[in-house]
C-alpha cells in the first residue's frame, strides 16, 4: 500500500530530524524524570499504597507526554516546512507517520521512566503481563488523541498551555481506564481481570484514530 510506505518515510524523516536536535526526546525525558523526582521526593518511598502509586504513575506519564507530544507538528510550522510537506505527501500518510513517531516516542519514554518508577517508588506489580499490555495500549490511545490536538494547536497561538487544556478532556478516558487497569494488575496476575479496561482502551484507540484520520485533512490544509 503506497500510503503506508509514504507514512514510513515520513516517520524516518522525523526520526532523523529528531536526532539532529534531540529537542523533543530531551524535553519529554527530562520532564518525566523531573516529575518523577518531584512526586517521589514529596510523598516518600514507603508512605503510599500501590493503588495511589499506579495513579501517580499515570499522572507522570500523562504530563510528560503533554510536554513533548505536541512538538511533532509545531516543528513543521516553526521551521516553515509544513508547506513543502503538504506538496510531497498525502495527509493520511503524514498523519500516520507522525502518529507512529509520537507512539514510539511515548513508548521509549515509558521504557525509561517505568523501571525508574519501580526503583524509586518501591512499586510492586503482581501481573506484569496485564500491566505491560495496559500501558502499551494506553500509549496508543494517548498518542492517537494527542497527535490530532498537536496538529490543531500548531495552527494557533499560545501553543504550550493550550495543548494540555485541549488534550485533557479528550484523553481522560485513557487515564481513567489506564489507572483502573494498572490498579487491578497490582493485585492480580490474571489477564481476565483487566478485560474491561483493555476493551475500552482498544475501542477508544480505534475510534480516535479513525476520527483523527477523517478530521486531519481539515486541520492540515488550514
Amino acid at each position, binding site marked *: 500500500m503506497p500510503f503506508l510506505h509514504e507514512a514510513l518515510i515520513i516517520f524516518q524523516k522525523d526520526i532523523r530530524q529528531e536526532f539532529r536536535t534531540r529537542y523533543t526526546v530531551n524535553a519529554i525525558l527530562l520532564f518525566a524524570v523531573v516529575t518523577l523526582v518531584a512526586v517521589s521526593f514529596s510523598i516518600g518511598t514507603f508512605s503510599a499504597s500501590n493503588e495511589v502509586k499506579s495513579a501517580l504513575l499515570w499522572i507522570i506519564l500523562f504530563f510528560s507526554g503533554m510536554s513533548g507530544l505536541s512538538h511533532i507538528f509545531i516543528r513543521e510550522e516553526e521551521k516553515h516546512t509544513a508547506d513543502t510537506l503538504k506538496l510531497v505527501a498525502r495527509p493520511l500518510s503524514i498523519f500516520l507517520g507522525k502518529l507512529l513517531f509520537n507512539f514510539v516516542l511515548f513508548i521509549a519514554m515509558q521504557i525509561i521512566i517505568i523501571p525508574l518508577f519501580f526503583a524509586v517508588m518501591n512499586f510492586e506489580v503482581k501481573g506484569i503481563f496485564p500491566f505491560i499490555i495496559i500501558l502499551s495500549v494506553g500509549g496508543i490511545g494517548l498518542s492517537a*488523541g494527542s497527535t*490530532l*490536538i498537536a496538529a*490543531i*494547536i500548531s*495552527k*494557533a*497561538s*499560545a501553543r504550550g498551555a*493550550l495543548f494540555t*487544556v*485541549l488534550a*485533557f*478532556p*479528550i484523553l*481522560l*478516558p485513557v487515564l*481513567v*481506564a489506564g489507572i*483502573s487497569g494498572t490498579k487491578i494488575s497490582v493485585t492480580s496476575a490474571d489477564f481476565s481481570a483487566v478485560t*474491561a*479496561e483493555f476493551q*475500552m482502551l482498544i*475501542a*477508544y484507540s480505534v*475510534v*480516535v484514530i479513525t*476520527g*483523527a484520520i477523517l*478530521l486531519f485533512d*481539515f*486541520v492540515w490544509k*488550514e
Partner: protein
Amino acid sequence: MSYFWKFGIFLWLILVFLAAFLWAPLAEGLGEYTRIIYFHVPTAWLTVVAFLIGAVYSILYLRKRQIKFDMIAEAASQIGLVFCLLATITGSIWAKMSWGSFWNWDPRETSIFILLLVYAAYFALRSAVEQPDRKAALASVYSIFAFITVPFFVFIVPRVYASLHPDPLVNPEGKIHMEGKMLMTFLSSLFGFTLLFFWIFKSKLELIKIKISLKERE
C-alpha cells in the same frame, strides 16, 4: 409572534416552578431535596442537546465552508456552557443532599465535568486563533473530535464502573420510573426548558443574521 413565544414560555415555566415545588408529590422515602430533579435533568439534557447541535453545525461548516454555520455552532456551545454549569451545580447540590458530599467523582459527575472542560477548551481554542476562517475550521474539528470521545464518558465509563447516579433519561429499559403527578411535572419541565433553550437559540440565530448582513454591507 415572538411576544407570544416569549410570554408563553414565561408562563409555562412559572407553572412548572409552582408544580415542582407545591403540586408534585415527593418520591417515596426521599426528602424535599428530590424536587431538584425537575431542574437538574432538563439542564443536563439540554447540555447534551447543545453539544449535539454544536457538533452538527461544525460538520456542516467543514462541508460547506460558510462562516454562518460556525457562528451557529459557537452560539449553541455558548448556551450549552450555561446549561452545563447549571447541571453541574444542581447535580452537586443533589449529591450533597443524598450522597453526603458535593463532589466525589462518581462516573456521572466526571462526565458532566468533562463536558464543562470541553466547552472551556473550545472557547480557549477560539480565543487563541486570529483569522476567522482558521478559527472556525480548528474549532469545528475540535468540537467534532470531542464529540466522538465524549460517548466514552456518557455511556461506557458508567457501565464499567459502578455509579450511584440514578438511571439517566436514556436507560437500558427505556423507562422513566415515576408516579403520575411527578411524571407530568417532570415532562412539562423538560418541555418548558427545551422551549426556553430553543427560544434563546432562535434569538442567537437572529443576532447572527444581523451580524452577517452588517458585514456584507461594509
